């Protein structure tokens, strides 16, 4: 069984935020308005956690890209009263928008605060709603949403491979943020396969997971900057 995971090398990350832009474009995340930003209601599936490194006077600021951490033992899925969010067999923590009742229990349970709530109907200026990615639903008000590791790309890739009667090659399924990263800091693949680049990197001594002590076992693994 595959277990999709991701490694983000903070040494290679330049903090350019291209992954965030790619993510928003791929996943139809509405740009949001100044009013929403002011209210603290912007939705960004991929956010950047500001980190200060080093001690004074040698301080460096860094941005740590953070999306849904796709935990193996997600705190959010246990609490959903309607199973709108659940870990699927490939290890992707799913979110089914049409099942969600909008109670925000999952968001409160998530220690990373990387789930988002649609406080208002997402606003698409002019005709931009028609220019969105047809593979991803346009969300509506009153539901929560989050990064799904671009699972629609997995569906596409699987379908293509099956139609051509061959196994899925791991390079066929790559989330948008990985694709956009100019420095190759984000690596994606199957964590179960010991030969894959991602699982090799995950075994690196620099590897750590955010809030590891909570036992949520995220599948987004970071490599400490040295």
């Amino acid at each position, binding site marked *: 069984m595959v277990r999709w995971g991701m490694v983000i090398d903070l040494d290679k990350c330049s903090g350019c935020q291209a992954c965030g832009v790619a993510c928003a474009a791929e996943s139809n995340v509405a740009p949001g308005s100044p009013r929403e930003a002011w209210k603290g209601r912007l939705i960004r599936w991929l956010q950047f956690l500001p980190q200060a490194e080093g001690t004074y006077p040698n301080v460096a600021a860094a941005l740590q890209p953070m999306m849904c951490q796709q935990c193996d033992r997600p705190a959010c899925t246990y609490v959903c009263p309607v199973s709108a969010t659940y870990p699927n067999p490939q290890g992707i923590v*799913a979110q089914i928008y049409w099942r969600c009742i909008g109670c925000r229990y999952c968001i409160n349970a998530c220690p990373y605060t990387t789930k988002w709530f649609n406080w208002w109907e997402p606003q698409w200026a002019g005709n931009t709603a028609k220019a969105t990615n047809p593979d991803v639903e346009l969300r509506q008000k009153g539901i929560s949403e989050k990064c799904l590791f671009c699972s629609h790309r997995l569906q596409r890739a699987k*379908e293509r491979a099956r139609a051509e009667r061959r196994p899925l090659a791991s390079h066929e399924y790559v989330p948008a943020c990985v694709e956009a990263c100019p420095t190759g800091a984000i690596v994606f693949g199957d964590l179960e396969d010991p030969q894959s680049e991602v699982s090799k990197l995950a075994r690196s001594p620099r590897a750590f997971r955010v809030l590891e002590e909570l036992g949520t076992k995220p599948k987004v693994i970071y490599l400490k900057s040295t």
Partner: protein
Amino acid sequence: MGRITKVIAGWALGLSALASCEDKEQPIAFPHAKHVALKMECVSCHTGARDQTHAGIPWIHSCTPCHRLDRPFPKTPPELLEYINAVKEIPWLQVHRAPRHVYFSHRRHVAVAGIDCAECHGDVQSMDRPFSRPMFPAGQAGMDRCIDCHRKERVTTDCLACHR
């Protein structure tokens, strides 16, 4: 509990069906039956059915190879002739439409799973006119229907496989 669910779901579906019940008037009374009788395959006109997400609605150049003025057979009805002469697309109305939150791919079902078109679309080969409303054998194409078949065929019932 299941029964209550079904009653309420059925009631809701019924209401929505009532609301979307008005028949669409197609521009030409295309006889599916005649074409199938001539050993034409579904995919020769609905070209995307085998290898794309959407089966597609035929364009005018699907008609022109056969419907030619210089041929006595097949007969070209005058309303079709108009479109052919003007090289204008026939304004077919899309009848079957998967909701946006559902990822329904024809390729998955036709090319990968090898399901016959009639399994979902019914007895199209005896229809003497195009679809004017969504029709599926044995009622609506709701999620229950998808799940029933997926269970029977032992394919994935993971929500994320079809919902997005």
